[in-house]
């Protein structure tokens, strides 16, 4: 069976290679910082399942220290010049898109087709994580195809991968870090505290007030947590169900559907949703870390107003 553990080994080996290649990159004056950071991240993938909780905690602390104190630099492995790229783009044509599109294609096929495939009595893929595993398989196949077709220098794929990883830098671990912070918030009961404040101090006597507080609360709480999934149970238990549904007899499906979408308005505004907002800013080499968020703010505001009005006009009517 292909499991997540297998994917972690693949990821661990690729980050380990970035660590080794960084160590020899004289163009990067902070190369030892990069080696330590990618090395530790590789160790997390390779050995995390065998370490105990506080050992993993120490590993995370070291990652925070390295990234937080700005000890990473940018490696500049030798690569193709602009002219070479233009020339290659002309020669290879639109086939260049094929390996890139192969990844989502295989991910989809894997998710849909391989879900229940068995070899003997064993399922081929660990069925709880079919999508993620299919994605990893898709990447491995597409990379193999690209290497066979393009015949690059031996280390080129890893060097190009390392260059991009250095460019994103410590932000690579940000989504995973934020998910972990969410776990601490849950452990400490942050959600209940927020729900208590919302119900105790905000006006909720009219049907419209309940809808407005619920929608805006979903967006605000999502912005704080970085994730609408964390906000939804708290806000719905505090306001959505007791007031909108039970007291004012609103339709629960409409309340829940539009409530969740109000939360997504919050996701568009927050650096806490790192993989949507901060990571692309790094990938696109924007000088402003919040550049993507700034572009999204007007849409987020308008959509929150739209959702609040939609819910008010629909939830008490159907």
């Amino acid at each position, binding site marked *: 069976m292909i499991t*997540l553990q297998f*994917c972690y080994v693949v*990821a661990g080996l*690729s980050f380990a290679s970035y660590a080794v290649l960084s160590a020899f990159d004289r163009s990067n004056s902070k190369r030892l910082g990069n080696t330590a950071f990618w090395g530790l991240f590789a160790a*997390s993938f390779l050995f995390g399942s065998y370490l105990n*909780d*506080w050992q*993993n*905690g120490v*590993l*995370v602390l070291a*990652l925070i220290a390295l*990234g*937080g104190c*700005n000890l990473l630099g940018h490696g500049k492995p030798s690569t*193709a010049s602009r002219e070479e*790229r*233009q020339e290659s*783009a*002309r020669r*290879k044509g*639109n086939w*260049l*898109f094929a390996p890139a599109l192969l990844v*989502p294609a295989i991910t*989809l096929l894997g*998710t849909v087709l391989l879900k229940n495939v068995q070899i003997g009595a064993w399922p081929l893929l660990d069925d709880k994580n079919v999508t993620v595993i299919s*994605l990893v398989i898709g990447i491995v196949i*597409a990379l193999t195809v690209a290497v066979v077709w393009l015949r*690059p220098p031996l280390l080129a794929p890893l*060097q*190009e*991968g390392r260059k991009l*990883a250095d460019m994103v830098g410590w*932000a690579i671990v940000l989504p*995973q870090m934020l*998910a972990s912070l969410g776990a*601490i918030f849950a*452990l*400490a009961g942050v959600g209940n*505290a*927020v729900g208590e404040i919302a119900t105790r101090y905000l006006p909720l006597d009219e049907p419209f007030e309940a809808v407005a507080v619920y929608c805006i609360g979903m967006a605000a709480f999502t912005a*704080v947590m970085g994730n609408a*999934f964390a906000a939804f149970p708290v806000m*719905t238990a505090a306001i959505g169900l007791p007031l909108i549904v039970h007291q004012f007899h609103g339709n629960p*499906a409409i309340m829940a559907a*539009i409530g969740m*979408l109000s939360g*997504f308005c919050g996701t568009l505004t927050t650096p806490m949703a790192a993989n949507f907002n*901060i990571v692309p*800013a790094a*990938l*696109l080499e*924007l000088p402003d870390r919040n*550049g993507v968020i700034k*572009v*999204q703010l007007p*849409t987020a505001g308008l959509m929150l107003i739209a*959702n609040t009005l939609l819910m008010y006009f*629909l939830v008490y009517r159907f």
Partner: protein
Amino acid sequence: MLTLLGVAVVVVGFVIRLNPLLVIGAAALVTGLAAGLPPLVILAAFGKAFNENRYVSLLWLILPLIGLLERYGLQERARMLIARIRHMTVGRLLLAYFIIRQITASLGLTALGSHAPMVRPLIAPMAEAAAEKELGPLSNRQRYRVRAHAAAVDNVALFFGEDVFIAIGSILLIKGFLQQSGVVVQPFDLSVWAIPTAVLALLIHGARVLLLDRKLRREMAQAAK
């Protein structure tokens, strides 16, 4: 109430633009202490959560593939493709991508897209090429704005498209949570009531990307004076 101190740390940390990793570390410590947990317990809980969430980072495996294809001219090819299409502008390109991304997401195909595999190598260079074809060389500020819009389109189209599909994570979470609370809703009803918002998102964000065309044109005209 004290547990909210950690939230305050996050907000203040991001507002004064400290390094996010340090902010997260501090927020975890403050939240845990406020809840009465000893530091070593917090450290272990954080390590455990980080380890369990490793699958979040598996997407980065795509970097060698994208880097390799870029080495052989993927971004340049994306630009060439756009330069050949007549009457193409940034706004129209982004609107087209928005529609495709939203429709495929609403069919459950959320894997088609995202920033590392799609926006950086394809959509962002295409958007820049479309703008430059119509308006000539962009200033750095304009270039960054066009790129940020390319990323934003991917997010907005995904967020307000995916819930129209009945088996997406958030719909299942809603159903599960309401069921626990004794309220039964059908996934189909949830996805139907996500449609009005999806349509409004297309109208609102679509209008904004088309306005981007106008704005860039006006800036170019002013710069020419």
